[in-house]
């Protein structure tokens, strides 16, 4: 099939950037969206046009590197699917496809469709851990944890840190991302000891990075490729209030 692409091109962080129109010809329905872009890039190179820069790595939906807004939706139209796992059979011949980067103040554009998500790392560096050194830890079975709590922790831990939640939110809020990590640790006994310091440090860092707050649009949950639930934000808020109250 043949498609018309409108792609955000921006040379670097200081460039203004604009949408460019490209034709994608003879696209197979079996291709993934990123493979379609590979084909377009090979074609552009042959026309002496610089290929479109976009982030990607594992191409199996787990590394969290790919980050495209397709026709206005982060990761495109398929539910619970990263762009690398989105296939062209979900489009039809003659479609116009608009491809843009994540847009948020805390994710400045590096080039074309690539953004800088180091603000996410900084939130994690502020408190997204349990303070244990290597060695000297008790036997792994010394502390039983109920399956229910452990499963909830795993639901939060499944976050891939892609940032689609921020890109979808009208407030560019990182609350779903932060709440996933908070939920993981809040449901494990190992995480409870530093619960107060953790939630305060992570929220403070989140605010200082320029992310907005949650006002219950639920767009984040709708686009999350790992189906992280909005009720985790409730847990984040509870943990935060608890930490303030216990001062």
């Amino acid at each position: 099939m043949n498609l018309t692409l409108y792609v955000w091109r921006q040379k670097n962080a200081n460039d203004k950037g604009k949408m460019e129109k490209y034709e994608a010809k003879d696209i197979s329905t079996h291709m993934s969206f990123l493979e379609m872009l590979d084909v377009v890039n090979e074609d552009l190179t042959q026309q002496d046009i610089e290929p479109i820069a976009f982030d990607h790595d594992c191409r199996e939906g787990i590394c969290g590197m790919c980050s495209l807004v397709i026709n206005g939706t982060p990761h495109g139209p398929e539910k619970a699917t990263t762009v690398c796992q989105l296939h062209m059979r979900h489009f039809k011949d003659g479609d116009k496809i608009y491809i843009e980067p994540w847009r948020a103040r805390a994710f400045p554009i590096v080039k074309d469709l690539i953004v800088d998500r180091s603000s996410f790392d900084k939130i994690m560096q502020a408190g997204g851990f349990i303070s244990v050194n290597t060695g000297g830890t008790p036997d792994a079975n010394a502390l039983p944890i109920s399956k229910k709590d452990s499963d909830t922790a795993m639901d939060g831990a499944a976050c891939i840190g892609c940032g689609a939640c921020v890109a979808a939110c009208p407030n560019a809020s990182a609350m779903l991302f932060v709440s996933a990590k908070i939920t993981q640790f809040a449901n494990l006994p190992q995480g409870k000891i530093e619960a107060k310091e953790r939630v305060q440090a992570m929220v403070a860092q989140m605010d200082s990075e320029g992310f907005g707050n949650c006002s219950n649009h639920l767009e984040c949950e709708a686009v999350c490729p790992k189906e992280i639930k909005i009720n985790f934000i409730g847990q984040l808020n509870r943990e935060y209030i608890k930490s303030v109250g216990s001062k």
Partner: protein
Amino acid sequence: MKLDAKIPSGPLAEKWDNHKFESKLINPANKRKFSAIVVGSGLAGGAATATMAELGYNVSCFCYQDSPRRAHSISAQGGINAAKNYQNDGDSIFRLFYDTIKGGDFRSREANTYRLAEVSNNIIDQCVAQGVPFAREYGGLLDNRSFGGAQVSRTFYARGQTGQQLLLGAYSALNRQIGLGNVKMYNRMEMLDLVVVEGRARGIVVRDMVTGKISSHAADAVILATGGYGNVFYLSTNAKGCNVTAAYRAYKKGAAFANPCYTQIHPTCIPVSGDYQSKLTLMSESLRNDGRIWAPKKVGDNRPARQIPENERDYYLERKYPSFGNLAPRDISSRSAKEACDEGRGVGETKVGVYLDFTDAINRLGQHVITERYGNLFDMYERITGEDPYSVPMRIYPASHYTMGGTWVDYNLESTIPGLFVLGEANFSDHGANRLGASALMQGLADGYFVIPYTIGNFFGRSGKSSVKNDHAEFKKTETEVAERTKKILNVGGKRTPDSFHRELGKVMWENCGMSRNKTGLEEALKIIPAIREEFWQNLKVLGGDQELNQSLENAGRVADFIEFAEIMCYDALMREESCGAHFREEYQTDEGEAKRNDKDFAYVAAWEFTGVGNKPNLHKEPLVFENVEMATRSYK
């Protein structure tokens, strides 16, 4: 070049303890005076960086991704082995050691493999303390499953994403040290060369992938944890960015490269669907528990699967290996699939695939049972192929998955260049000629959390600080070489993209140095690869500049290294005139078509020394001595 494995003396079970006791220590107050560079932030690199920083060393870590959390360890699905014996089913450190040695077809080093089994238990304790949410039983204790043909249940897992959870555990430990100011993290930075002065590794030269700036970084030790080279085949289950560059540049600077021909091809991946294909996706091996693998009996049978009657189907694994059937080991089932396709009996549009059919299991157990067991895998298959595996059989084909070969290291994980250490998949040490399921995660974390933190102290204690700073002439010279190479790539001005060369190379390697190899094919590859290399430097087309983010440029540099590296792989496969583990030489098989190992002539590690691009490298042999296990023949009939 002299290979000294530095295996400690004493009985197997006491070697590591003895070695730790005999190792030099660095006074806690002096540790901050020693610096280390770690390249790679996966399980091995992330764990090593965090642990060394906790000890007080001054550590920098470099990764090519935008965050250390993206390293490809994250994609591992199955699990991680440990000899905890929580299931009371007879597991022990010695049994895990033995299974690993046997699984590697007696081509790994006893002492290293034993240590791996020994520290496996500490890894699980560590990860739980970090908050890794391993699967649990209703009673609250950790759950285990059996994996990869093991007769005990020793595999710990976190749903189908164990690698992700272990990596995020290491990433959290790393983040804590970054936040405390003990680690300097460099994201989107690619190591382009190693700097060696007076026979010791002194640091690295890197390119900032956003600005294009080339810079030098000096340290008292350099640690590579840069993963495997499976992308030499172009199509593999590796991430797109996985590459051999760091390891290959170290090889060019004098680090011997061991057993490059040991590459694992995983039998159950989704087949290639067209020329545009960029990667292959692994489907868990567990599918073979209920699926039956078959190909049509007739060559060129184009009928849809459902229209091929039972008596015209060849359930070839059941036919050839009646006692193991569809559960035959990875190397055997991979090779059999290739044979069927080579005979013209492949299925699907491309004819490169075989069926994995669940009809019998669905009829026997009911669809709900199959959904319960494999529902998520069936969904994944449907997402990628657009076919419903409940109504038409899955199509599968083998794909490059893991590389057992890697930079040669001694017991301390130090390469033949003093001060250069290599961890995880990037080294060669623990898996021999074939890796068992759920052992890759174990090795990465063992090296990072529990081996290098000890052996690096011993190195610093014995060798002292490096006096070479990053303004040394050798750093400047290397920076110039790196910059010139970058310019050279941009200035070829030809017609072909880096990817087109990579695909061409991959095809040659897959055909001639893939699942099965023979002398003629390998010799042919050794003629074709230099021709690809030559054309690469005459007909390459890379747009854009060097002082900016340029993905084609990055890719071209990696492809150039893969092309040169491919030759060593072929030399190694040609030299090894036996079949062992994942290395199957067609000339060396039994009458029944099984691998025929030759312990008399080939029970050694082949370590190759660089002698110039396009020249045959020098072979050095490290004999493998087995004092604690008897070398046996694998049989799966």
